């Protein structure tokens, strides 16, 4: 029997396949279709202090092997989350990571403080791909100083695992990984969506009401894999790999390049039980190859690092 569990910051996870924020609701919506207790963890939709209505339609558009979204972080706010969703979450066994979004550093802190009062939550994932209202709306996540600052401010407020979720929309994600590690983050999630766009040529308009949106799905897997490889070689804390994971093989690719665990996002929309199927597939791969612990896959890639294209010609 393969060992599938692992821990981050003292919290034990039953397996290495988590469901990504914004792609599994608050955990209750899919419970009739999938046994959520077979997931490594549920990561909730990003929560802000107050409820957010989200962006006007159109919010999603399909692209080749992917999709763009501009949900606008529609969420019920942390208070309603506690009253409406916590009761369900109390009935399940799998770990729950709450994802936090905010438009000021103070708001990140305030949301976390509310959540700290409840023992059910196993950790926090911080979505830094949010507009920093004090800086004219530029994303926190593309600014290394701000990303570090959020980590620094949150760190002393909780003993639970603090997972910083990085954006891929930067030249060198390793710089951001090092910055949050230095401020005491327990782990890194990588990556959030890539900025992308689609046009309706008949209407001569952007398809999304917000012009640009976030690209996710299998299309981005190669990019995400390269970012996770880069990030995990830069830091000692665990990196959770995200981006386009559709099959167990995809997930194993992420583990091999250095991810301690993975998250399944967009594929939940296509198959709400994708996460469970992938967790089982990783286990089957290990059994087939005589690997006693899924952790043995982590960082097991045999790569001559010096020949990376970062120092080569395309």
């Amino acid at each position, binding site marked *: 029997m393969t060992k599938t569990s692992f821990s981050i910051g003292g919290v034990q996870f039953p397996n290495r396949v988590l469901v990504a924020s*914004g*792609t*599994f*609701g608050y955990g209750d*919506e*899919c419970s*009739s*279709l999938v046994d959520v207790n077979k997931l490594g963890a549920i990561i909730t*939709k990003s929560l802000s202090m107050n409820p957010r*209505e*989200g*962006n*006007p*339609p*159109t*919010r*999603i*558009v*399909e692209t*080749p*092997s*992917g*999709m763009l*979204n501009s*949900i606008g972080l*529609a969420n019920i706010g942390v208070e309603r989350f506690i009253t409406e969703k916590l009761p369900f979450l109390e009935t399940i066994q799998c770990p729950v990571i709450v994802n936090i979004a905010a438009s000021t550093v103070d708001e990140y802190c305030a949301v976390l403080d509310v959540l700290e009062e409840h023992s059910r939550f196993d950790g926090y994932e911080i979505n830094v791909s949010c507009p920093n209202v004090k800086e004219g709306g530029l994303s926190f996540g593309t600014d290394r100083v701000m990303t570090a600052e959020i980590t620094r401010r949150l760190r002393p407020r909780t003993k639970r695992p603090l997972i910083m979720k990085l954006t891929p929309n930067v030249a060198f994600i390793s710089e951001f990984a090092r910055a949050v590690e230095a401020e005491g983050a327990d782990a890194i999630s990588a990556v959030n969506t890539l900025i992308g766009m689609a046009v309706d040529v008949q209407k001569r308009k952007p398809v999304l009401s917000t012009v640009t949106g976030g690209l996710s*799905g*299998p*299309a981005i897997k190669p990019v995400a894999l390269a970012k996770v490889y880069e990030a995990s070689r830069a830091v000692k804390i665990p990196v959770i790999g995200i981006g386009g994971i*559709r099959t167990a093989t995809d997930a194993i690719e992420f583990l091999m390049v250095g991810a301690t665990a993975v998250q399944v996002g*967009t594929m*939940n*929309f*296509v*198959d*709400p*039980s994708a996460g469970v199927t992938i967790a089982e597939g990783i286990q089957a791969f290990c059994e087939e190859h005589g690997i006693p612990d899924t952790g043995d896959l982590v960082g097991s890639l045999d790569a001559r690092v010096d020949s990376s294209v970062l120092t080569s010609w395309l």
Partner: protein
Amino acid sequence: MVQEQSQVISVSEVARNTYVLRFHSPRIARSVLAGQFVNIAVADDCDPLLRRPFSIYRAHGDTCEIIFNVVGKGTLALQKKSSRDVVNVLGPLGTPYSLESEGFMTAVLVGGGLGVAPLPLSTLILRNKGKELVTILGARSSEYLVEQHLENVHVSTDDGTKGMKGTAVDLLASLLPTQRWKSPKIFACGPTGMLRALGKFAVDRNIPCEVSLEGPMACGFGICQGCPVELVDGRSRYALMCKDGPVFDIRRISL
């Protein structure tokens, strides 16, 4: 809501560029309500990636039917399916028409183009309920009309090749004064433009009206927040088309 690996039974052309796909899906067939839809995985690979939503056209015994036009790569893939294929179907999804309500005696079913899709299932239920039934169809031209499994059908075509020349709303407007419908309620499905016109017509005359909407969806069951429908008032600014809809009371929404 269940996810079924459904054996395709047949794909047949019932009108110009209009196909009925019949599949074996006992759990969905037995629980589906009129106006609900299914979300179908059309490809094995990554393109097209997302499922495609279709109203349930008919359900009998263990089988379901959808009706569709080939408009893009997903519907093209469905049209190419045969009885050798299996499709993964998620459903039944969404909020149905409130056909069970006591608040009306005559159901006026209005279908524009492929908006006919949810009407046969509605007809079946309304007939069992003993309601009066009027069906009003609009199509581009006669070759696109699908009149099967309906009752008391009135027809309009844009080009006048069959029935009244004009839209379904025009036809409704011309019928209304001549008919003696007892406490009517409209149940409609069709393109947004038609629903907008129909909604105005119904609200102006104070006729209750439920419409089934169409629009982009990723998940189809409420987890992606990708399908907002603007509400005219109420606590929230948006409802979700896939979960709170696709059927809405026309007075609740802004089209």
